[in-house]
């Protein structure tokens, strides 16, 4: 049974990657395309999708297609930065605290516990609210919440890898602790962290949309999927396409990232299994 679902997943796994590639391309090349996301034209207010435009127009007569593509840039940039910053902080702290132990480890574990006690998105909202709206502040707010998971995972990984006998053998051979770290620890803990990061991206895409929806993210007239949904919410009964289009795009990207993460995990799993 399980094997069957896996096989069908493999076949499906092509479209998530296609979607992720589109997302990246639109995010990087969007600004270069001849788009008019901010062109207001009162004659086409709330026009539904049709001959005039593929995805219709919003309450100010701006083309939704153009805005969705530019919104990709926001979500992509935010997720990229948040993952990078969270990984740097989380992995470094996790490694240092597991590797050296002692009081430092004790403090880090307590901090992680305190952070985990807060609902992450509330903390991010509070931070973004204090710092004021803006894409940089969204990155800072989400990273502040995001590093905790990586730190905990890394610490646990290092602790379990540290017990392996080849590390003791390396110590007995007189290797320097930096070389033990780069040769024996880092390569073994990397795989689960990469997988975790790929799942993390999906979470960040949603969190960014959430913050924008609350008006804490990118400021108008700049487009982001979150604030497009917020704008559309007021016209939900009149022009549902204003909410549906960014909503579906958001859902597709998150689903694609999650499925790709699954696939990545399987890939690493197989390698680990064959090496044991």
């Amino acid at each position: 049974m399980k094997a069957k679902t896996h096989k069908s997943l493999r076949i499906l796994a092509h479209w998530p990657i296609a979607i992720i590639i589109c997302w990246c391309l639109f995010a990087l090349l969007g600004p270069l395309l001849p788009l008019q996301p901010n062109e207001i034209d009162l004659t086409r207010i709330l026009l539904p999708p049709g001959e005039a435009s593929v995805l219709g127009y919003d309450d100010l007569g701006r083309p939704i297609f153009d805005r969705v593509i530019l919104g990709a840039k926001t979500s992509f940039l935010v997720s990229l930065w948040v993952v990078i910053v969270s990984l740097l902080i989380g992995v470094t702290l996790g490694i240092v605290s597991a590797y050296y132990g002692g009081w430092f480890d004790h403090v880090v574990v307590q901090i992680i516990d305190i952070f985990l006690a807060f609902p992450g998105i509330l903390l991010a909202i509070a931070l973004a609210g204090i710092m004021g709206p803006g894409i940089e502040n969204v990155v800072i707010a989400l990273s502040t919440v995001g590093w905790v998971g990586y730190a905990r995972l890394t610490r646990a990984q290092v602790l379990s890898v540290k017990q392996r006998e080849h590390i003791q053998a390396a110590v007995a051979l007189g290797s320097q602790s930096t070389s033990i770290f780069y040769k024996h620890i880092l390569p073994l803990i990397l795989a689960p962290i990469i997988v975790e990061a790929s799942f993390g991206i999906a979470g960040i895409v949603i969190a960014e949309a959430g913050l924008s929806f609350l008006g804490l993210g990118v400021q108008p007239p700049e487009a982001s999927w979150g604030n497009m949904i917020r704008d559309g919410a007021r016209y939900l009964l009149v022009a549902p396409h204003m909410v549906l289009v960014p909503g579906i795009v958001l859902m597709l990207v998150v689903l694609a990232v999650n499925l790709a993460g699954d696939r990545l995990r399987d890939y690493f799993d197989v390698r680990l299994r064959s090496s044991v």
Partner: protein
Amino acid sequence: MAKQNSKQNEPGPLLTVTGLKTWFETSDQTVRAVDGVDFTINKGETFALLGESGCGKSMTSLSLMRLVPEPAGRIVAGSVKLHDEDLLQHTEKQMRNVRGKRIAMIFQEPMTSLNPVLTIGRQIRETVSRHSRFGDFSAKKRTLELLEAVGIPDPKRRYEEYPHQLSGGMKQRVMIAIALAGDPELLIADEPTTALDVTIQAQVLDLLKKLQKDTGMAIMLITHDLGVVAKMADRVAVMYAGQIVEQADRNQFFSNPQHPYSKKLFDSLPTMTKRDQHLAVIRGSVPSLAQVFKGCRFEPRCDYAWDVCRNLVPRWCDTNNGGGALCHLLDPEQERPAKTPDEKTKAVETEAVIRKISAAKTQLLHVDGLKIHFPVQKGLFKRTVGFVKAVDDLSLEIPKGKTLALVGESGCGKTTVGKGILQLVRPTAGCVKLEDVQLNRLKPKELRGKRRDVQIIFQDPFSSMNPRMMVKDIIEEGMIAQKVGGDAKQRETRVEELLEQVGLSAEHKLRYPHEFSGGQRQRICIARALAVEPKLIICDEPTSALDVSVQAQILNLLKDLQVKLGLSYLFITHNLSVVEYLAHEIAVMYLGRIVEYGQVEEVMNNPMHPYTKALLSAVPTIENDGREVIKLRGEMPSPVNPPVGCHFNPRCAHAKQKCRNGYPDPHAVTETHKVRCFLYD
């Protein structure tokens, strides 16, 4: 029950297996794990299935229970008849009434076989209620009876306990109680004592024998240990590469094994008498079971093989003593080759006699008063509430070019001694001196340079190498760290030399560890240690994860290297037969202290300490010398709260008041033989 007993007491076959084949389909091949197995188990007898890892013995037992992991595995042919019912024709629902009630099973790993969140009483009671119509009250009564029957002291209290509160031996007893709950006709014991210490193993084996006598059940014992077979079995079947290659009565088998494979197994056992020679090894490795064999499966590794063996599958030939074997040598229709292989092997043996190392005795390692205590911490602020005295005032010496064996059961601190000598764990007190350098006083930087003198080989050949490094990088690591072996090119030549020295070939250097078998990995670990030209190698149970025939290869290699390079070994082990083959001196450890220390002949032939005596007598041997096993009460206490006085006194049959008051001082029996026991004061 009485009725059933009388039924079981009539002799006759209980379980008849014919032509059993269990295959595993993977995407690109079919692995024939069990490939045509026939045997019969009689009522009330113990039938041993002997074989090395991967030979299909566990898969055979799972097939009997119809527990083969599906859908990958499939029983493709054969019949399994319990009395007259063919179990392979049963529906899954019918099978559920067979499992546990008529055939029960116990496994090797008692730690993972019990549910950690249920009390053991509840786990046994569930099986009791499942297989009978006991009410709640009488089910509990029966459970307590079972706990009593498997020798668990104070069953009422244990009934309420959880698995983690029990020791390994106790858990195995609980597993046996669960197996007995359905009052089975056949108990399948799959390596029941492999994970246990020898003294506990002796207890569990005795228990199985006693229960068999009481209930009249038959036991199918699956094991790789010839000693356990000799102690327990009535009949023996030897399995190799998915087939049974020999079957015989116990006495016949041990006095006169027929199949060349069985003979080799006996020859590869390390014993005292083989000290000055190489152990016989079975060359090559077990063939892949994904092929269809054209000839005999053992032919590539057999000393007796001739043309017929390559081209004709041997048929089952009965021997005159009621047993039989799968070998052309026994087939009257096949002509034997002219050259008798006995001459061939004899020639090899004389060539392989190892000259004794000269008696010049200079000490290499001094360990004096070594103490390693680990703090036990509790609470938010990690207050130290006590110490685990893993090693407590231990002294030993290792001469140049000699082997000291450190023997003890798990938890006695022997591995910690090794780590303390290596300075992987810094000692709490005492002195570790290698030649003139006191290792435990060195600063980390100085120590790093000195590390090349002492190396270590671990027990587990799987976790002792980084799975993401190539063999070349693994072996080179020490040379780079110690800046020996010259530039990259010279190092590479050295890696090739080392690989050949440990019996691998130079082209293995570009492979990854997972491509090698357990024995080969252990060779790579030895090469890694040798790369920095150490003077002392600490061998921490290097062969206990390996099969007997592979163990023989590694022991031979270690012995050769010792002669060639003048190495000293600290051989940490619980396996006394390895000790008598390899070691020159022996130190027996109990709860952090050495209780007996001496030349290997002195200690093995004339053990003084009651613990050493019990340990030696508990090892099941293949010789039926009629000696009695000295039973030890209970199990080793925790090193956090060692017993007051002599640590051994609660388990000792000779304990006196004196033993409870103080720890005995070493008493010299001879110049080299010391014992710490009040009996000799």
